């Protein structure tokens, strides 16, 4: 036991010796929380729109004012011909063009209807669709007020209620995803170099000839990263609560247990990578370059998993962060108990066992 502690202390010292490791360990979570909490939003705002008013009448300018009054749009007004619209889009200055035809309001009063043309830049489909929705809503609302005869006598109204997130705190959607992402990437990357580093430097031989059991070398490697990852998790949690004002609704104990389990899964994956490679460079390329994008995508916090083709949905099942993401959402944000997440927990336990078994099998205690 004493030897074990000595080993653990050695590992800790090696981690803390390098400030750059700490940058990844603690700088990354802070940066991510700030970015996801304050900078990144799935809401579309500040849309540059060009309004071409060929009619210049009361109604068209009233609608334009309505559009200006929302804080979604930044309005430019210029009268340009059809051919120049393409040029404007190509310059990238605007994302949508709204055109009132000549005689807009006289058509409206004489013929009872008139057309507004909206052209959007489809290179960003999400923004294009959102612009369509915003403008339709604005114009329809204007119509209802301006021409009340078209409104309806019997109405079913809706009263939406935001469950779990009454203030509509946008960062809430991202936080569980960020947690899963950071723990997964940082934890795996750090452990993935741990053993291969000793192999590369030749210090592995010294460890193996020591009276210490080889398996304990692995365990001693994992312990510091396990503890550091738990601290890391605590840091993210504190930041989300105090900086982003997210309440932890469920049991803290359960949250920690589940996170500890997930950290173990990532550690096992890291050890597996470390045992299967011979160079630090390769290990890091796999754990960072290889895993970054798949983790971002298959965790399911940016792109909805149910939209993916079935084959990719199947692949997403082997990504541990996906399951952890589901657990965190249920426990932390919805405040649900263990009975709602036992399935996901079981999957993580299974993954850990499998990864750890293969990692141990691959761990060579003899040198070639």
């Amino acid at each position: 036991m004493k030897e074990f502690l000595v080993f653990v202390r050695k590992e800790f010292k090696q981690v803390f010796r390098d400030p750059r490791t700490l940058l990844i360990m603690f700088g990354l979570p802070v940066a991510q929380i700030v970015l996801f909490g304050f900078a990144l939003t799935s809401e579309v705002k500040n849309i540059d729109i060009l309004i071409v008013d060929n009619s210049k009448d009361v109604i068209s300018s009233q609608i334009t004012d309505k559009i200006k009054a929302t804080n979604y749009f930044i309005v430019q007004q210029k009268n340009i011909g059809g051919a120049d619209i393409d040029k404007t889009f190509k310059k990238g200055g605007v994302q949508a063009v709204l055109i009132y035809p000549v005689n807009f309001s006289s058509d409206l009063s004489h013929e009872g209807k008139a057309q507004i043309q909206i052209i959007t830049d489809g290179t960003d489909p999400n923004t294009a669709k959102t612009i369509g929705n915003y403008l339709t809503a604005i114009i329809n609302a204007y119509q209802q007020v301006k021409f009340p005869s078209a409104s309806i006598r019997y109405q079913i109204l809706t009263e939406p209620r935001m469950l779990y997130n009454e203030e509509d705190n946008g960062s809430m959607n991202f936080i569980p995803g960020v947690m899963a992402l950071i723990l997964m990437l940082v934890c795996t990357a750090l452990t993935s170099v741990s053993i291969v580093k000793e192999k590369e430097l030749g210090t592995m031989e010294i460890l193996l000839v020591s009276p210490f059991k080889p398996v304990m070398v692995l365990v001693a490697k994992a312990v510091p990263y396990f503890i550091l990852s738990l601290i890391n998790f605590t840091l993210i949690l504190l930041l989300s609560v105090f900086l982003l004002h997210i309440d932890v609704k469920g049991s803290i104990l359960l949250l920690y247990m589940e996170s500890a389990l997930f950290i173990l899964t990532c550690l096992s994956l890291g050890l597996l990578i470390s045992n299967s490679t011979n160079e630090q460079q390769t290990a890091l390329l796999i754990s960072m370059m290889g895993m970054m994008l798949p983790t971002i995508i298959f965790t399911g916090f940016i792109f909805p998993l149910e939209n993916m083709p079935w084959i990719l949905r199947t692949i997403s099942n082997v990504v541990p962060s996906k399951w952890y993401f589901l657990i965190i959402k249920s426990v932390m944000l919805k405040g649900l108990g263990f009975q709602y997440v036992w399935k996901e927990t079981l999957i993580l336990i299974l993954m850990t066992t499998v990864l750890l078994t293969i990692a141990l099998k691959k761990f060579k205690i003899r040198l070639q």
Partner: protein
Amino acid sequence: MRNLGFLLQKEFRQIFRDKTILAMMLALPIIQLMILPWAMNLDIKNINLSIVDNDHSSYSQQLITKIGSSGYFRIISADGSYKEALEHIENGSSDLIMELPSGFERNLFREGKQTIGISVDAINGSKASIGGAYLSSVISDFNVNLGINQIKVPDYKTKPLGFIEITFSTWYNPLAEYKYFFVPGVLVLLLTLIGGFMTALNIVREKEVGTIEQINVTPIKKWEFILGKLIPFWIIGMIVFSIGLLVIWAVYGITSVGSLPLLYIVAGSYMIALLGFGLLVSTFCENQVQAMFVAFFFILIFILMSGLFTAVQSMPHWARIISGFTPVSHFIKIMRMIMLKGSGFSDIRIELGYILTFALVLNAWAIWNYRKTS
């Protein structure tokens, strides 16, 4: 100049000697480019809805049928009470609950209006909020076609009451498919990963192994050494970029609308900027792990701020400024402009100017920071 030739020979030999790394540099990005964009789709489909109908009247049935046939929703359960429906939200099988109160039809006739409750699982972010909006619009559409409204306003068509019709057209991507948006971005991203990581690693590796000392004692000049490192990775980067363009064409059927040479000029400049970044990182680090970590830290932030996943213009002002300081955001913007819209040189010249500035500053800084004496 001869020195440079020898250095290049050495670098290429080293790169080709290590087959694992070479395969990883070429295969990882290409495989990811082939697979990942299929998963990147922000469409909201199959919104799961639980319905609690406390009224069981003909109008409530009509409304439910209308919602079911709208195509957006999958009605997964009809529950007896709100509590039962909440159970579905809690175990994740449902996104929305619509609760029709008892007396729904009666109140609608007597009072002219009736409010129904929609409960949204707001943790499920965009899906739930858009689901809620869809549901509201289906219901307001139902209002218009409600039998009693049709009877009350018989002269709807004959009386000129002003009706504004909106026509939409989506240019450059008429079906608003997400692949056009994400595929060029993913290619940029993968190029960034290779360029940023590989150069950072390579110099540091010489430091770690100790071979840099041997180079330092030779009469090789600083710029020769750095060029010797840059050129091979620049070439590899351009090869990956070309293969990437082929993959984009073969797998996704996307070809560049704009000029291909212009695209290559921009990509070439971008690679120089990126390699400068990698070099700079390597001058600050002593070993590979450090270099990887520092590079990773910045690249992850670059990616999130670049506008690949979320639109830059929606960010707050300070974040947009930070975004402007990442070369990735400019390149992604140009890629989309040239490939999808066919923008020409004059349209992108400002953005290209940014990239060239990055290339200049980062490389100058790296050369300045590289010391031949330790």
